[in-house]
């Protein structure tokens, strides 16, 4: 099966600081990636996506970086707020499967007020 893993299962940051959540993926055929945020009792919420022809994409307070050479993805959250506390998943979509998103186990982000 696919292996999408996260380097740190938990991350605690001070409110106002920047957060960086990392993700390693194993399939070099993956050409589309999504970061999801999941709060307790809710479904995953789309944050930002990136295609493999890009190495950086910015959204509102979030930036995703893609390094295809080392198969690494990161999510940067600027000025982290208490409402950012959640589990964050990266999901990859290999070109050769066409349909499936593969998810990692997630990183739990806790923002300390």
């Amino acid at each position, binding site marked *: 099966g696919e292996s999408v893993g996260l380097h740190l299962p938990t991350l605690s940051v001070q409110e106002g600081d920047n957060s960086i959540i990392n993700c390693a993926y194993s399939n070099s055929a993956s050409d589309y990636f*999504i970061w999801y945020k999941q709060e307790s*009792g*809710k479904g*995953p919420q*789309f944050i930002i996506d990136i295609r493999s022809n890009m190495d950086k994409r910015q959204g509102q307070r979030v930036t995703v970086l893609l390094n295809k050479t080392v198969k690494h993805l990161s999510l940067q959250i600027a000025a982290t707020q208490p409402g950012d506390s959640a589990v964050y998943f990266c999901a990859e*979509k290999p070109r050769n499967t066409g*349909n499936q*998103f593969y998810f990692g*186990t*997630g990183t739990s982000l806790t923002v300390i007020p």
Partner: protein
Amino acid sequence: GAGVSQTPSNKVTEKGKYVELRCDPISGHTALYWYRQSLGQGPEFLIYFQGTGAADDSGLPNDRFFAVRPEGSVSTLKIQRTERGDSAVYLCASSLTGGQMNTEAFFGQGTRLTVV
């Protein structure tokens, strides 16, 4: 609707019973996905629909699981002879397109199934 809607939000059933889980995707989205999420894990793919047809059902764990999408909109995931190991959150997602066209997939809140 504004987002993906799943019903019921919670379902408790006895071992051996049959259950149906419903998903209303975002209007106009042709691609629909079912995932299953166990506690502390990421979602695992079950099945993908493009329109009315199941384009990829490789994630269904066994023949007790079946899903339909007869009119290309609402989908129902059906589980026969439920087992305690089927207990999980069942998530539905939809996207504007699927397959080789990569567009963001939006998830519903899930149905928490508990088999006792």
